[in-house]
């Protein structure tokens, strides 16, 4: 149970194609997160799976049944809305019981299931309250409770935590992860919060203008983004991009020339000739070190943030596509206006061709767990 397939799924509003052919296989029990910039079609895709939005083209299959024309209730899904969509006039109990009432379940059954859900979600004390009397986190839990009682094979969440404050969000994140394990259900989760995506997902689906840009585990996306879009989107602060020119390529990697004229060997496999081509070098702020490494870049911080745990610098660098950022240890002696040298390691860098597609990094994901990477 709980498998889901999308086959060339499309959606148009009038002449505007919003989802442009999405293919995705979800296994039972997976936690899939859709991320992407605002307007990229995350909600639309989720709502198409839910049956709230008509499908313009393609097929959606849930548990080996094409559900394109089924109403939501027949799809075996449950959905949690961003606004929670709690019925303000009903008690928590009645809110959770709503789907069961629709089914005309017997009183005892309803009682049993609601109590079970309330138990899982620690809402037993609140059952007689109205949603208006609950805190944000509690409301969120009620919304989940309403989804749980239906025992669906697929849970759909549309930015369920975006109305909560940071602390509560962190807490609920952990709870949702636990719930996922407990219920052993397939979950599809839309968010634009990176941390949520990275922490909760088995696999992340990065959407860009209605097409899937990359699908993969969080670490895969972090370490092996397939293009500049994913590379820039995953990771906070954003990856730094520097215009470089290719020099040569070989088994040990690709040699590029930095704007400063120095060379750096990036540990990637080149599929094509790179000499003389203009390429983009990507390096995450947290992979920069004070001093020099395989190569270095001179920066003059314009802003320095001391976060205790980290010190973050921002500077303008020739060849960099936007503000150049580095995340240094909390004790790093960076000062505004004082020039400093930033070390780059070829093994940590990413390289992209003129179309923004990544060269394959010489790094096996299996090794990642064992490798002792910086930070």
């Amino acid at each position: 149970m709980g498998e889901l397939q999308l086959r060339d799924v499309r959606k148009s509003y009038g002449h505007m194609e919003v989802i442009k052919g999405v293919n995705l296989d979800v296994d039972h029990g997976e936690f899939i997160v859709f991320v992407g910039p605002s307007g990229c079609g995350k909600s639309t895709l989720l709502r198409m799976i839910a049956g709230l939005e008509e499908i313009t083209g393609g097929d959606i299959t849930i548990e080996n049944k094409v559900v394109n024309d089924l109403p939501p209730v027949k799809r075996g899904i449950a959905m949690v809305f961003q606004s929670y969509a709690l019925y303000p006039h009903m008690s928590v109990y009645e809110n959770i019981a709503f789907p069961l009432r629709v089914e005309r379940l017997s009183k005892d059954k309803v009682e049993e299931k609601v109590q079970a859900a309330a138990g899982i979600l620690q809402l037993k004390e609140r059952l007689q309250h109205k949603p208006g009397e609950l805190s944000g986190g509690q409301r969120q839990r009620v919304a989940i409770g309403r989804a749980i009682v239906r025992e669906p094979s697929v849970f759909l969440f549309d930015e369920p935590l975006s109305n909560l404050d940071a602390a509560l969000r962190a807490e609920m994140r952990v709870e949702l992860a636990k719930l996922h394990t407990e219920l052993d259900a397939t979950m599809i989760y839309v968010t634009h919060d990176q941390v949520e995506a990275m922490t909760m997902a088995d696999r992340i689906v990065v959407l860009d203008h209605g097409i899937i840009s990359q699908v993969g585990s969080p670490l895969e996306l972090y370490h092996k983004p397939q293009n500049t879009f994913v590379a820039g989107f995953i990771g906070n602060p954003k990856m730094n991009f520097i215009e470089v020119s290719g020099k040569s390529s070989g088994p040990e990697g690709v040699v590029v020339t930095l704007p400063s004229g120095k060379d750096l060997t990036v540990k990637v496999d080149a599929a094509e000739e790179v000499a003389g081509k203009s390429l983009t070098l990507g390096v995450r702020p947290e992979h920069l070190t004070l001093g020099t490494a395989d190569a270095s870049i001179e920066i003059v911080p314009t802003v320095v943030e001391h976060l205790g745990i980290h010190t973050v610098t921002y500077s303008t660098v020739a060849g960099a596509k936007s503000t150049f950022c580095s995340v240094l240890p909390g004790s790093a002696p960076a000062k505004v206006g004082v020039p400093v040298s930033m070390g780059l390691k070829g093994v940590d860098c990413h390289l992209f061709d003129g179309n923004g597609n990544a060269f394959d990094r010489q790094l096996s994901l299996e090794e990642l767990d064992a490798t002792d990477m910086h930070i």
Partner: protein
Amino acid sequence: MLHKYRWYEYVLIYLGLAVFLTFVLAPFVEAFVVSLRPLSSLFSIPYKFITDKMSFDAYITMWQNVPLLWVYMLNSFFIATVVTVLGLFCIIPAAYAFARFEFPARNSLLGIFIAVNMFSGAVLIIPLFKLMQQYGLLNTYFAMIAPGTAFVIPTGIWLLRSYLIRIPKELEEAAWVDGAGKIYTLWRVIIPVALPGIVVVTITAFITAYAQQFIYALTFNSVNELNPLPVGLFQFFGRQTVVWNELMAASLVGILPVLFVYVFLQRFIVAGLTAGAVKE
């Protein structure tokens, strides 16, 4: 998707709408048909919806029976407009006071204002009459305007207040921090920001003032040239024969301009009612 209907649901909805709109619109259709019939076929038996000799003659001949129709229409507009303007002049500051300020007796005062709703003009007509007479105001526009104004104020305050409450307080605080005085803030910040709400209040006040012009005018005014439309047309009933076709023609011509205006304003009306509907 959510709003996809099955064929029988469409049938039910349109059938329901047909019945509902028939109830609402039948009188207008009837009025129009009557206005087209010559008097003789008007009183014809058995009832025929379409009679022969239908024509627009009544729209021409009515000018003899109500030569002042234009004047009545203008009066109606004029009275409703002045009521609305005066009403707004009272409503806006009062609604602002109730929406934004803490002062002793605020709630009871508001309650009193709202409660005034329950005294129609008919209830107060005697003393009002004496009052008007005392100050020589009978047979003036003022006699019709003043009571109208009083009875649009409570609803207006109620509507606008619920709108103003939703304007963030920070706007005023920001203006205050910037040194703007209270009147300046009201004039330059609150009123422009509340404009959609004010538009709604304006429309509802106008509707009320326009629709309820009968009793004050009938009682406080007897100068024909000052009469609003309903009283002007009521004169048809004072004759030996009620010239129904002309009455209907005159009624339709008389109300056409407002109907026309409201077709264009309907967006605001529905939107504005939301203001009141969301929170009571």
